């Protein structure tokens, strides 16, 4: 056990009943240590418990067994201190707020003063390239733009930890790759710890320092793959033999799919 790890996931298991009353074994004895500033992917097919694990870290779910420690405290304490920035699979924007006021929402919750709010909003919208759309309503934006608003909102509170739950899965391949590059650029400027859930192998290789490969039925950790590709990474890296060999290494590490 690494005491210096920022997030320690220790023997976490999760059981629940689905609507039909069947027992679901969503996670079986998963342990992962995550270092500060690390970009970690939780990768796997549907039913592997990757989203469940993220939600346990975010304190949106309680594990049946095992525990998660974040910066030496419980996930709940971390949530109450608003140290998480969460980007959901759907952008989850509030339709009645303009782009800039969606980014403002968590800042209002943290009772940050108006001047500081405005300067952070400016900065975040510039980072995600939406300065010209700050007065638009969400439904006026494309899916990719909406997701970028979600990222700006998560970053605005300057969270210790960024949790991203398949944020780009609803987007087309072109937009996804563009946002992958944007995300790396943003991350290199902020150096947050990122936990990124995805079912896309090349996305996880492109983004991560380490990829945690999860297999389904029951959800379990089957491998942790170090991604030692140099940074900063650009789209050309997707064409390199090293990239392909990591992708096939990960593809071969799935069990029982």
């Amino acid at each position, binding site marked *: 056990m690494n005491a210096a790890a920022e997030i320690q996931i220790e023997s976490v298991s999760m059981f629940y009943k689905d609507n039909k009353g069947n027992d679901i074994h969503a996670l079986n004895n998963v342990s992962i240590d995550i270092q500060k500033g690390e970009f970690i992917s939780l990768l796997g097919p549907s039913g592997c418990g990757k989203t469940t694990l993220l939600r346990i870290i*975010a*304190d*949106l779910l309680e594990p049946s067994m095992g525990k998660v420690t974040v910066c030496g405290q419980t996930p709940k304490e971390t*949530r*109450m*201190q*608003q140290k*998480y920035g*969460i980007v*959901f699979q*759907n952008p*989850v924007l*509030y*339709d*009645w*707020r*303009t782009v800039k006021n969606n980014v403002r*929402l*968590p800042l*209002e*919750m*943290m009772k940050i003063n108006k001047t500081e709010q405005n300067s952070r909003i400016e900065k975040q919208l510039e980072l995600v390239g939406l300065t010209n*759309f700050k007065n*638009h*309503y969400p*439904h*006026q*934006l*494309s899916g*990719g*733009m909406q997701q970028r608003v979600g990222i700006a909102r998560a970053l605005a509170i300057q969270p210790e930890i960024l949790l991203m739950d398949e944020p780009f899965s609803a987007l087309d391949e072109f*937009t996804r790759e*563009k946002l992958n590059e944007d995300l790396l650029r943003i991350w290199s400027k902020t150096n947050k710890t990122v936990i990124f859930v995805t079912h896309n192998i090349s996305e996880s290789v492109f983004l991560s320092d380490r990829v945690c490969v999860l297999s389904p039925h029951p959800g379990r950790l089957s491998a942790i793959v170090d991604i030692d590709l140099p940074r900063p990474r650009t789209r050309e890296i997707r064409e390199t033999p090293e990239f392909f060999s990591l992708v096939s290494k990960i593809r071969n590490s799935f069990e029982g799919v």
Partner: protein
Amino acid sequence: MNKNKTLVLLVWFAGIFALWELGAFSLVNIFHDKMAASKLPYPHEVIATLAKNWQTLSEAGAVTFSKAATGFALGASIGIILAILMSISKIAEQIAFPYLIVSQMIPVLGLAPIIFNLVRNMDASRIIIAAYITFFPVAANMLSGLKSVDIDKRELMYSYAAKKPSIYMKLMLPFSLPYLFSGLKIAAPLSVTASILVDMLGSKNGIGVKLLYSLYGGTKDIFWASVFTSALMGIISYFIVIIAERIFIPWKKEFNTKAGED
């Protein structure tokens, strides 16, 4: 409004007017109906009467309308508060909802005289009945809005460790606004109807009085002009709500255009 819509509207009104003229003409000249003037008078005559008596009709209408509006505001406030209470507490909902349903089973026609006997005041009766008829559609629609808030929108608030007051102010209430306005749109013309109904119970003024007296007093032209005025009041009440909706829900899709794609 664009040109096409204006044209459609014009043709629509012209069509109705022409059909009505034709109907009135055939009653008089083909069927030789002696009651033609009370069954279906010529619309141009009705409009002429309306113009001639505009002052008295609009004064009567204003009395009825202002009380309807007060009752509507009162009923809408009660409806909103009830909906919020029922959404905060499951028990409150279980206690209150059956009463709300039962309240809608009492015919207003029967309730109005009871209320009048209780308060012995025409204006108060108008307001109470208008409020009574307003609160239910408002409460029911608002509650359904509060219950339709997406789970992921709530989770976002949870992740910010938000307290109940800010969850309501920043999420539940703005989310429910479009639902509230559906209720208000149903309730507005109803509140006018309710106010007219109370007029007829023996009020001294109001458009309902004009309707009643002219119906039994044989002044057919005034009767139809009063019907027109009443209809106009209902329509106006509806459009006031539509305008308020535009002001309070600026994010509604129909009011905005889409920005460019990535």
